[in-house]
């Protein structure tokens, strides 16, 4: 019986959320905005008009406060479980400066994606999406429907002086955040120093010490890696007399895949381009087949965790905390091990197979899109944009990266931005824990410009050690971003979405089967034929066209 009530839940939710009356304050404006946008879309020739004379009149184009009369907007963003957004000093300070306050809607990070999709379907949108990881598909779909406002006119008309400066100095960034219809629907996280495309893998330093493996002797080929994993398995490196070591830990392979695929010359786990500008789909490459063969070997010799496909990330971390893992992925090794930051656990060195001369290593493109967007229900787009523009200045970025001055840090030299840490309040384990209670920019892709200046004077031995590891183990390998940041047209996007629905399930399922041996690797040809039949060639074709368009723009 239970089941029969649930079958239409998808449609019923959307119906009832539509049914709720929008807040009356914004109703009139959203209708005005909505109709003007629709008019803009249908007539085709005239561009949609964003904002109104009324909402613009309340905004100061320079300095603080941003609005003359106090306004309240609604904002949606993910809750990482450290602190309520309304109690965060960063927001409180910003409210004092800007005269803009927010009503927050913060679903937990775990279910944020689902909640975000529902909000879009409901017809009742927050005024602002902050750190909401809007996908490029979201932007193209909801942007072309007029739900997300195009921001380029406001940017060029002086409502985002800091951001405009960045975009003018870096045309490549502007190119990357502009959709094929010429609009900018979301603002990015800009971090030209960022290196990790995926969090790195780390070796367990205790294990290496017990086996007397020096950092210089860490594996550089897949065979050496295999040998070391065998030693992890057999020689009891955690010294508890039990054979409970797990040489390579993983959750559904999503954490280790992109690092190991590089051994066969594959830059990304999905769509990637090679140096000649040819687009590849990793899951149909021969290198991927070699990867599966290798992982199957690790599995059958109990070198890869046999709970890889059934455990949760928390279960993996629990094993790390009891010192069972030899090689694992995390943002920092001590996140898995527990305890304080340590320089004992060295970073994984990219390994290579015989098939290639050097491993393919992916690097972060330095930019993530979808960090900030304004919806059609926003009564004050100009003020909202001015608000977020502050995050692209040094002061604003600092406020939202570390919280207001005097809590976690204090300035030593105002001229060259040198700072130092303040003593950590005793109730917090680490500075990162404390930081998470000060600002929403913790574990979320928030709109900002992260310049090296932000860290000036704040780098400790551990950070410098990580920098050095990055230098030696990633930057030294001539890394490239797997695929440029680019947008598909709404038509291309919807074709990709429907092609990929079944294909992604099939690929994920077959990967697990090949690795665990449920399906022998002799089934590869069959797999390849099925994936092709599901339209993998068409996917490559679409992305190739988008890539060429991006390159020539």
């Amino acid at each position, binding site marked *: 019986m239970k089941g029969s009530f649930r079958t239409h839940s998808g449609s019923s939710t959307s119906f009832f959320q539509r049914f709720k009356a929008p807040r009356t304050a914004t109703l009139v404006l959203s209708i005005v905005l909505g109709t003007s946008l629709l008019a803009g879309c249908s007539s085709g020739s005239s561009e949609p008009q964003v904002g109104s004379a009324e909402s613009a009149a309340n905004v100061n184009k320079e300095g603080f406060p941003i609005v003359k009369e106090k306004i309240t907007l609604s904002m949606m963003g993910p809750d990482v479980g450290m602190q309520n957004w309304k109690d965060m000093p960063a927001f409180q300070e910003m409210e004092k400066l800007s005269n803009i306050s927010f009503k927050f809607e913060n679903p937990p990070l775990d279910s944020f994606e689902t909640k975000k999709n529902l909000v879009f379907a409901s017809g009742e949108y927050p005024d602002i999406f902050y750190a909401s990881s809007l996908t490029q598909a979201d932007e193209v779909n909801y942007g072309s429907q007029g739900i997300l406002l195009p921001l380029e006119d406001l940017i060029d008309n002086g409502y985002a002086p800091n951001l405009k400066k960045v975009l003018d100095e870096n045309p490549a960034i502007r190119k990357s955040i502009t959709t094929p219809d010429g609009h900018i629907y979301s603002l990015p996280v800009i971090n030209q120093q960022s290196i990790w495309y995926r969090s790195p893998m780390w070796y367990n330093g205790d294990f290496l010490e017990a086996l007397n493996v020096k950092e210089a002797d860490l594996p550089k080929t897949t065979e050496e890696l295999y040998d070391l994993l065998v030693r992890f398995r057999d020689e009891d490196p955690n010294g508890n007399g039990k054979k409970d070591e797990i040489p390579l830990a993983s959750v559904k392979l999503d954490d280790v895949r992109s690092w190991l695929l590089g051994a066969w010359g594959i830059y990304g786990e999905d769509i990637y381009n090679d140096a000649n500008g040819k687009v590849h789909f990793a899951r149909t490459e021969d290198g991927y087949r070699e990867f599966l063969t290798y992982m199957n070997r690790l599995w059958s010799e109990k070198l890869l965790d046999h709970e890889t*496909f*059934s455990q949760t990330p928390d279960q993996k971390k629990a094993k790390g905390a009891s010192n069972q893992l030899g090689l694992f992925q995390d943002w920092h090794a001590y996140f898995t091990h527990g305890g304080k930051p340590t320089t004992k656990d060295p970073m994984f060195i990219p390994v290579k197979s015989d098939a290639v001369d050097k491993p393919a290593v992916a690097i972060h493109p330095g930019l993530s899109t979808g960090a900030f967007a304004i919806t059609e229900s926003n009564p004050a787009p100009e003020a909202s944009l001015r608000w977020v523009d502050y995050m692209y200045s040094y002061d604003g970025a600092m406020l939202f990266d570390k919280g207001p001055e005097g809590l976690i840090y204090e300035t030593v030299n105002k001229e060259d931005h040198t700072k130092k840490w303040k003593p950590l309040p005793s109730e917090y384990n680490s500075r990162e824990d404390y930081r998470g209670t000060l600002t929403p920019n913790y574990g979320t892709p928030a709109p900002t410009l992260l310049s090296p200046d932000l860290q000036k004077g704040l780098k400790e031995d551990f950070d410098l050690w990580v920098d050095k590891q990055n230098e030696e183990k990633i930057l030294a390998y001539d890394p490239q971003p797997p695929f440029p940041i680019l947008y598909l047209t709404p038509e291309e996007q919807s074709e990709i979405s429907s092609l990929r629905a079944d294909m992604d399930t099939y690929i994920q399922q077959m990967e697990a089967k090949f690795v665990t041996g449920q399906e022998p690797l002799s089934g590869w040809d069959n797999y390849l034929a099925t994936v092709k039949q599901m339209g993998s060639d068409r996917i490559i074709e679409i992305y190739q066209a988008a890539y060429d368009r991006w390159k020539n723009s």
Partner: protein
Amino acid sequence: MQKNMSDTVQVKGRSQASAQDKRHTFWKRISRNWELYLLIAPAFLYFLIFHYGPMYGIQIAFKNFLPARGITDSPWVGFDHFIRFFNSYYFWDLIRNTLTISLYQLIVGFPLPILLALAFNEIRNGWFKRTVQTVTYAPHFISVVVMAGIIVTFLSPSTGIIVKMIEWMGFSSPAFLTDPAWFKTMYVLSGVWQSTGWGTIIYLAALSAVDPQLHEAAIVDGASRWRRIWSINIPTIIPTITILLILNVGSILGVGFEKILLLQNPLNMSSSDVIDTFVYRTGLLNVQYSFSTAVGLFNSVVNALLLIAVNQVARKTSEHSLW
């Protein structure tokens, strides 16, 4: 001629009067029993608002739903989404998994509460009876998420207590969580553990309606305990059993979605992916609302047809049926 006319007039007058009468009696009936209608009004409104109202949204199964345009104004596409589903790679897998899990659940899970209720009914010791009932009801109150957590913890290959027990007895334990062959059994048996006790309640209520004089008479006639269960208790609860069976069959394509989703992983997917998890994946995760509504609608129509068919059969073969 005149006579005829007067006849027609008369007839007309009579029929008008009777229609008026009907309307009159209808309102009279309502006003006479207004308390009863008031009593049923909340339930009636509940179904109207929360179960019939949302059906307005079903139309997006035949449209290309665009949030900005809303349900009514999105463009029509006819049966495209249905055709895409029927041609989808996973169509037959989904149907097969949904049917086998449901049937498995029905065959194993349906008779057990009946047997347990008959057994409870035979217990005379009040304290013992209450204790056993409470113990068997208790798992019902565990939420699905916690339940899935318990299953995963107990069956984990490295630390699971059940796996350890099997190994301790000298057998090698199957990979319950990842072997597709074990998924359905794991799902059904954990469901049996959780819901059998609770399922007895309705049968116990039915059993309390048995006339004690029948038992007394049977005892006088020398009937054994088995004989009495077979000839008195079971026939009494047959109508209840039939109705519940019809209702169960009616939801055969609607297996409990949350538990399956929580126990699903890429390795057991080939036997754990059912229509509802597919709808969740395409609808909420891949944002293809129209497509997933079409799949959900297909599911509901099949359920409704099964319900009607089984009810038809029940009505033909016995005197008990839903309507």
